[in-house]
């Protein structure tokens, strides 16, 4: 392994440590946010927003998605679309049930 490659990995390690620290802080923040005196809808939005930031950090940096090939990004975009369909299905049945 060349000196350049070694340095490259060490740079990566610094990023991993920063992400690790951010994930720890965000976990504490998630718990702290659950004690806020806000409505259930606001609490759900806040908790999911923090979870999404955490998930993006893991996927982007630990799983290297930010530098990954387009083939993988497209596979994930397609999967995410169907995932969203899955999430909205219960909401559709809910509006149907309540005749909204």
């Amino acid at each position, binding site marked *: *392994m060349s000196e350049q490659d070694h340095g490259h990995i060490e740079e990566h390690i610094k990023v991993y440590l920063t992400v690790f620290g951010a994930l720890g802080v965000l976990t504490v923040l998630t718990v702290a946010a659950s004690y806020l005196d806000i409505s259930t809808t606001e609490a759900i939005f806040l908790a999911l927003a923090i979870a999404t930031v955490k998930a993006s950090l*893991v996927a982007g940096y630990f799983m290297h998605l930010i530098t990954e090939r387009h083939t993988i990004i497209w596979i994930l975009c397609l999967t995410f679309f169907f995932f969203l369909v899955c999430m909205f299905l219960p909401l559709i049945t809910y509006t149907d049930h309540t005749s909204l």
Partner: protein
Amino acid sequence: MQIPYTTEERPDTGLTNSKLGIWVFLASEIMLFGGLFSAYVFLRLAAPEGDFAYWGSKLNVPLATLNTLVLISSSMTVIMSWASLKMKDFKKYKLYMGLTLLFSLIFLCIKYVEYTSKFDHGYFPSSSTFLAIYFTLTGLHGLHILGGIIVMTYFWLPIGNKMWHTEPEHFTDRIEIAGLYWHFVDLVWIFLFPILYLL
């Protein structure tokens, strides 16, 4: 016969077969958990008001927070084990992979304490809709942790030393693939923690 394109990229996809394979597998896993997350939303919307919050308050938030931190730490150590192999430092790989296994076992032990505490209080999946989806989601996630432990233990045992000495690049690739799976398991927990324990 050797599987082709395990270390060099295929000209048509620009990826190794193992990398493409694990991402397609993870896509199917997203849909597996997606279906269950969808069931959670469906059950929550249909439940009487305050029912999920009531049963959710029976769960142990400090233990789950600790488990979240443990799993995040294991994600960090698994990527460090891969980085160590990239730097040709096999001893450090063994150390970080060992730590990953330790963290994953701690996670399962804490889950065991949580489960037994629920059973001791007479809370079972049949007790409420919330507990049914709670045990389904965390149980399936726990099985994924167990699967990861089996794979990583295999690579941590002496057979891993042999693989490293005969085909170091192939072994590094295998650890990267196992790591991608492990990060996904962590990612699922990142969403399970707030929706089950905090909301």
